[in-house]
């Protein structure tokens, strides 16, 4: 197989898989602190899953980004991974991916440094994961090559719907205390 073709296929596959892994991470995180699901609040297995999912989506997300850097057609430069909306074509669609990457890195790093941080500040930083998810969803919707496929689209929309429902119930019915 042509190396450029292989890189392109891996970029697409890891993008979809990283999206699903991130959805599982966010779902398990919201479920822990939603009053509707109060029976899950003390669930150590779910808490453990939320922490563990970072080790799934980080390699997948890294592979997605690395393969896009190697792909000549994608025309993504290393600076585009940090500074959004700089790509020569479709700057909004690809820039949303950069914003989500920056936010997800921020949320993950601050989670590892939580014990050294102020609790209120950590909570506010952690809440940006909602913004990160919205930008990831829009990025996949506006630039995802396979998002038009019925199967992949149904999986992606279902995951987004699940997160949306849990987030809405958290707003309406309240959040469980720590």
């Amino acid at each position, binding site marked *: 197989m042509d190396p450029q073709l292989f890189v392109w*296929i*891996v970029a697409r*596959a890891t993008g979809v898989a990283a999206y699903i892994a991130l959805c599982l991470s966010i779902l398990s995180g919201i479920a822990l602190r939603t009053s509707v699901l109060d029976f899950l609040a003390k669930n150590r297995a*779910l808490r453990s*899953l939320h922490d563990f999912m970072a080790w799934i989506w980080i390699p997948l997300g890294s592979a997605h980004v690395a393969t896009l850097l190697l792909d000549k057609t994608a025309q993504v430069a290393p600076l585009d991974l940090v500074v959004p909306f700089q790509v020569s074509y479709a700057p909004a669609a690809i820039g949303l991916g950069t914003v989500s990457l920056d936010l997800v890195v921020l949320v993950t790093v601050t989670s590892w440094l939580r014990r050294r941080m102020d609790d209120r500040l950590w909570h506010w930083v952690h809440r940006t994961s909602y913004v990160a998810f919205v930008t990831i969803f829009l990025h996949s919707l506006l630039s995802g090559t*396979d998002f038009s*496929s019925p199967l992949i689209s149904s999986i992606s929309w279902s995951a987004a719907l699940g997160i949306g429902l849990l987030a809405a119930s958290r707003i309406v019915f309240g959040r469980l205390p720590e």
Partner: protein
Amino acid sequence: MPSWSLKLSAVFITLFVLVGSFDYARGHLKNPNAPLQPPVADRPAATSATPTPAPTIGPLLTTRPGQRPPTITPGPRLTLAPGVRTATLAPITLTHTS
């Protein structure tokens, strides 16, 4: 539910999606419905067929003394499509004489 079973399920779900989407992308290399159609950076140079020299045919007919030489009408000309190259086989010649 034990913690390891939840983690294992999550790993299996993600791997299933990864393998499935890899297989899908391999089967659908180009998606005309994709929202982004970036311009191709390096187009491969168009290959042009190198024309082969026209084969020369030696005298096929011999005439006896006093015999009018037969008129040879030109046969149909072979025109090749741009991508078609001629083979290096011996040309087909007319062997029939009257």
